[in-house]
């Protein structure tokens, strides 16, 4: 079995996750030391200063998801230069680029759709159409890096990022590549928020985002973000974590089936519940969907430190990518930020294995396992 390591991170999110200027590794500085609470029911990403990553003439044409995607990918590769202990300014070109996105480039999609309808199919311009393609982020990263390697995009609802991870893991195991740039991106637009509000997905009134679990009303807070990872089949002194595995499945028939999938997953990695140092759960503040997470935290994992993250980034299809960033940072820094603990506990030592469990609207379930390198 090939061992896979996380050797670079880039995370554009509603929190300060892009590191301090010039710091190395980029992403280990200020690990959620000053989390931001917003009064809202939709979280938007903090602009990381796109001109540091993308030529100015290109920024203008790019919709937000493309900017966020390209910036987080480039940040990740800069971080990798540091982790690989290479000379500053070295440009790493990955052998493969694999991305996931639940909805793809919806801003451009809406733009073209609206102009087609308003102009009754006449006088249309192509820019928003050509950028509406789901693989635009992966394609633009390849273009900017002049990367001719493997380039894939997965678009399967709440497991889009995990599907990309499975592909990355498969390719590294097959020995097709020695490194892969893998990430997940989704953007929130005014229209998509308005439409999904009508599904009853979101809190009806703004709340303090960091108090997400204290609000007992139906719904959660919408979010967005883009997180990339540089995976390699080589360990370095500064590697963040070992990427041990990922698994996805559709709606289990019962809680019993879910538990059996969970135990099978742990067993396939030679682990028991007691080996998990931190369980990161997809809790999103909707009492109905949180039920299963609380049940796991209060029974099987009652002695395990449990964490959560959607109060930091909101709910979106590829939010498990944010969770993987959090898990990798915990292992690298050997610290669990208090803001991410479901129940506050004193800081422990020796965070060996971090398990992430998320389910998207009860339908798409996934486990991601990270371990100390």
């Amino acid at each position, binding site marked *: 079995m090939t061992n896979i390591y996380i050797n670079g991170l880039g995370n554009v999110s509603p929190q300060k996750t892009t590191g301090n200027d010039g710091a190395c590794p980029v992403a280990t500085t200020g690990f959620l030391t000053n989390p931001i609470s917003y009064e809202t029911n939709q979280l938007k990403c903090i602009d990381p200063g796109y001109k540091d990553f993308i030529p100015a003439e290109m920024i203008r044409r790019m919709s937000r998801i493309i900017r966020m995607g390209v910036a987080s990918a480039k940040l990740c590769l800069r971080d990798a230069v540091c982790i690989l202990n290479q000379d500053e300014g070295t440009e790493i070109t990955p052998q493969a680029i694999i991305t996931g996105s639940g909805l793809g480039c919806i801003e451009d999609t809406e733009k073209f759709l609206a102009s087609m309808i308003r102009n009754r199919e006449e006088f249309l311009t192509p820019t928003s159409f050509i950028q509406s*393609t789901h*693989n635009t982020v992966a394609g633009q990263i390849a*273009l900017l890096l*002049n990367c001719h390697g493997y380039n*894939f995009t997965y678009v399967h609802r709440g497991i889009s990022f995990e*599907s990309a991870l499975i592909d990355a893991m498969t390719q590294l195991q097959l020995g097709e590549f020695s490194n892969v740039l893998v990430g997940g991106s989704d953007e929130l637009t005014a229209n998509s928020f308005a*439409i999904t509000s009508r599904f009853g997905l979101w809190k009806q009134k703004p709340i303090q985002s960091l108090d997400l679990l204290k609000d007992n009303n139906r719904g959660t807070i919408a979010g967005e973000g883009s997180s990339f990872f540089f995976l390699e089949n080589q360990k370095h002194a500064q590697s963040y974590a070992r990427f041990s595995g990922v698994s996805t*499945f559709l709606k289990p028939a019962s809680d019993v089936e879910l538990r059996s999938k969970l135990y099978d997953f742990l067993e396939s990695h030679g682990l028991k519940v007691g080996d998990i140092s931190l369980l990161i759960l997809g809790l999103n503040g909707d009492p109905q969907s949180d039920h299963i997470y609380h049940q796991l935290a209060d029974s099987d994992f009652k002695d395990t430190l449990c964490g959560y993250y959607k109060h930091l980034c909101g709910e979106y299809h590829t939010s498990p990518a944010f969770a993987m960033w959090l898990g990798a940072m915990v292992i690298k820094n050997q610290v669990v930020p208090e803001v991410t603990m479901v129940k506050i506990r004193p800081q422990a030592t020796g965070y060996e294995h971090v398990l992430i469990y998320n389910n998207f609207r009860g339908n798409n379930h996934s486990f991601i396992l990270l371990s100390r390198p």
Partner: protein
Amino acid sequence: MSKRVYITGIGIICAIGNNVEETLQSLMAERSGIGEITLFDTIHRGVIPMAEVKLSNKALLEATGHPGQKNLTRTALLGMTAAKEALKNAGITDLHQYKTGLISATTVGGMDRSEVFFETFLADPRQGKMIDIVNHDCGDSTERIASHLGISDFVTTISTACSSSVNAIMAGSNLIKTGQLDRVVVGGTDSVTRFTLNGFNTLMILDKTGCHPFDENRAGLTLGEGAAFLVLESEDVVAKEHKPVLAEVSGYGNANDAFHQTASSPDGKGAFLAMSKAVAMSGLQPRDISYINVHGTGTQNNDLSEGTAIERLFGDHVPPFSSTKGYTGHTLGAAGAVEAVISILTLRHQVIFPNLNFSTPMKELRIKPVTIVDTGHAPYRPDDTGHMDTGPDDTGHMDTGPDDPGHMDTGPDDTGHMDTGPDNTGHMDTGPDDTGHMDTGHAPYLRHILSNSFGFGGNNSSIVLSKTIDQ
């Protein structure tokens, strides 16, 4: 790990047929599915042609056996139809016997309903039927197909523009090779929509007279719709179940052109890399490829770029090639799987389906596509690009297939393909020196087919599909 990945079932629905048999009949008769737009209202009707599936949503829905279901998109309906046929063709009834997955590809997802929703929503954001928008995302059609087939072990969706469904075949093959799955249904589905029609129209790459792939006077592509799926199984399952094999997925490659978001590079770098990777993985040399089902959209840019890459890779030994988009139109996310199914029909029936609407060779290229039905009952010679002794009498290929002894006795030289390494994968029947099959009259000279699919975002993919000895 399974070294080999076998195709044991195929299913298709496209403008020239609602299933594999109808599609084959249309291909044999050189019947195009391109015609006037009928499925939706548009100012382009009567101006720009399209290749529509000739069934309404209602008829498709009835055929699924769940006529009561109201919220299925056309993309889902097409996918359900083709995937079900593939599963049936593979003779699979028990989905729990082996670990089974589904990887579907789409570019438009539920856009056919989203554009109806948006029309009302734009006027008043409180309006628009939610049932028209809930199925917008690409994963929706995949989960509908999964539930229609009864697959739940592993389900995902790929969207890389026009190369999407070849990429689904690759991803599925890799999951079998690593033992994560024993069987996987792979393919793609896309319906025509006003969104894509108008989108491609802004790029001014829609031919008002229907596409003319690889013709000097080509003026763009013709949009089509459809779905196609393949059942892939590991060598263990095939051996254990004694399953008939339609073909082997012997090689594949994906590369990025990294040139422009929509245009291909003049030298076709991405195309060259994808084809080279695919041929290398199959353990073959370029000269071993018997036929190329080219991407051949009919746009100025694609055909020149692809043709240039082909000439670079194959040099003076470019195999016969044709684009089948003159029949099916460009089915976007489904195109790779549609053309994989057509390539399997080419292998099964030993016939190259000619490139329609071709008259003038491109001045930049030395090569030109096959334009006459090539039934292939003679050995392949590299210089002989599709002008075999066809003729009306030579149509015995129609009723061949696994039962046809003519295709079984491929001669003692051909044994060992199943159980030998990549070095011994069919250098038998290509090349002018290889005259051993001359006197058999039934030699399967079409042994290894390369199929190309290239998409926006510089996404270039190629696969090699091969005949195996048990065929």
